[in-house]
């Protein structure tokens, strides 16, 4: 038991040290993010690069981003405050003014990963994005799909997107504390992590980030409030974190940033 106590202490210290380390190397952004958006560095770090995004920006080509998601990609009746819109705004601030950034959104509500992935070939013929952010897992978790089938669906989907010539970022489920005892998210989180590792693509860990905010008391995600304010704030922070994540994963130099 002693060893476990020690271990958990070490892990904890690591967790606590990470945000502190982050404060030092934060790049100055045009609009300072709200304090509540703070995310530990390890949640925004990815070993996997985004070569096509990096090339596009280096060559001064427009950056086309397609977000494929579900109902949690948007806020009902406030699309402009949803995380794809916020990411677009922040990326525009971070990138040189000459750089064109376009974010489009493809919502496939109530569709499992398998159903969504089957549309990818057609979808990618219609649009030719540099980067696809594929947010999935929620519908599968609600329907308790077989995790194995979910994994192969995500694998196929990622392959289809890559074959169409896009960089891919996977985004997992929301952290939803109210429904935590009703929706089993873990197998889907695990399998998305596995697919991301196997394909060497970045995984934006929306679940862990939102849980971090909830644990640290930045947002009260238990709130039963019917107003859109909380959703807007959370999506704003998610958009910022995602923009930062894409920026870092594409290994964009701070020099480029300040052009």
């Amino acid at each position, binding site marked *: 038991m002693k060893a*476990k*106590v020690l*271990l*958990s202490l070490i*892990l*904890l210290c*690591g967790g606590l040290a990470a945000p502190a380390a982050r404060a030092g190397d934060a790049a100055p952004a045009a609009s300072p993010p709200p304090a509540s958006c703070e995310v530990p560095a*390890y949640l925004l*770090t*990815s*070993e996997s690069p985004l070569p096509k995004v990096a090339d596009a920006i280096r060559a001064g080509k427009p950056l086309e981003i397609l977000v494929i998601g*579900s*109902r*949690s990609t948007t*806020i*009902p009746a406030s699309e402009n405050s949803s995380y794809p819109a916020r990411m677009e705004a922040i990326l525009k601030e971070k990138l040189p003014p000459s750089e064109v950034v376009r974010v489009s959104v493809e919502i496939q*509500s*109530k569709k499992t990963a398998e159903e969504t992935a089957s549309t990818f070939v057609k979808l990618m013929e219609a649009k030719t994005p540099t980067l696809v952010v594929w947010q999935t897992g*929620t*519908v599968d978790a*609600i*329907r*308790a*799909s*077989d*995790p*194995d089938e979910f994994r192969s669906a995500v694998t196929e989907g990622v392959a289809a997107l890559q074959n169409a010539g896009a960089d891919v970022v996977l985004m997992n489920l*929301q952290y*939803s*504390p*109210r*429904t*935590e*005892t*009703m*929706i*089993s998210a873990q*197998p889907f989180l*695990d*399998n998305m*992590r*596995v697919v991301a*590792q*196997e394909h060497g693509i970045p995984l934006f860990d929306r679940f862990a980030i939102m*849980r971090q905010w*909830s*644990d640290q*008391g930045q947002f*009260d*995600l*238990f*709130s*039963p*409030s*019917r*107003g*859109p304010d*909380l*959703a807007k704030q*959370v999506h704003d922070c998610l958009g910022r974190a995602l923009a930062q994540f894409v920026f870092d994963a594409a290994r964009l130099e701070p020099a480029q940033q300040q052009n």
Partner: protein
Amino acid sequence: MIRPLCETTAGSLHSFNVAICGRVFEPPMTIADRVTGSTIAGAAEARPAGTRPRTAVPAITLPAIGERELRLDLFRGLALWLIFIDHLPPSLLTWFTIRNYGFSDATEIFIFISGYTAAFVYGRAMLESGVVIATARILRRVWQIYVAHVFLFTIFLAEISYVATRFENPLYTEEMGIMDFLKQPDVTIVQALLLRFRPVNMDVLPLYIVLMLALPLILWSMKWRPDVTLGLSVVLYAVTWEYDLYLSAYPNGFWAFNPFAWQLLFVFGAWCALGGARRMSRILSSRVTMWMAIAYLAASFYVTLTWYVPQLSQFMPKLIEQWMYPIDKTNLDVLRFTHFLALAALTVRFLPRDWPGLKSPWLRPLILCGQHSLEIFCLGVFLAFAGHFILAEVSGGAAMHALISLSGVLIMWGVAWVISWYKRVADKSGAKTKNAVGNADLAGGG
């Protein structure tokens, strides 16, 4: 006649001698019995075992009933606490649960010990009262577990209906899709009664029900040839993996714990209880086994660490990753099973049965909980629901979380104590005829 059974069993020092022994009341026994415990294979008994004690290997050996094997209770109690904590939303305490330090988790411990104790209790019943009576007793137990499952499902329905009517945060419109099944209660409830619709955290009892239903067959086969039975179990496990056997669930998907795969742990537990553990004692006491177990646990700990510290994963060879992932809980991945074996091997080595700590008052709460596992398991699931409800309605702070976890554990202990106390009183005043036939609690679980 009082006789010290342990003295005569082989490999007594370091061995994985989980057989329950001690000074016990037993009818007079033959010499063969003195050597091997009470045996069933007629051939073994007929042999002059006094001269060649270890050559005659009986089909199964049953340890005598006497003192309880406290280690089993201890670890089952521990598994119950861990399952409770794992079912609560993650918090500081979650870092103490074993799933963060390796592949296997409390479920493995639970199913193994359940197999062990079930075989122990009902195996004896089968020897003493025959197959029919033992089967009837097993079915009665299955019914109890089924009722417990339905009870938990009712509580779940109450919780989910409450959330569905009270909670409309626009951030979570999508997640509220989980309530869709409330639109057709006619189908859902029937499917739940058929064990096909199982909400989150309610997967263990259906698995246990199916395993217990198979227990008469397992025991009957063990009575004949324990090793062959274990072999068949391994074959079924392999066939499950090769041909993808499963039980389907409602509305879609599969059982979260595939009984065709998880039966391996259960049967292995039964096999150990019926003498297998004793025969493995030499392997278990060897240093090679110990170091292999330690190396495996260390490696799996490292792999687990890469999940939490992604920076470490660059030191993981891609080939190993590809071979290893995914580590499948549904079908009891070999890596998980091996991890459990390694844990068990080290446990029996470093925690001897007569370890004085087992009698210490500090471990008493755990042991008490382990002794009433079905009740305490259900209570744990209920407390996890209730705790989650309080977190959502009152406050979600870390202090509240710690308080809920702690009071949950205390309540489990308190209830286990009350049940023990009641049983003691009832036994005293009740029938003295109902003695050492073994009670259902020992085999309980979920």
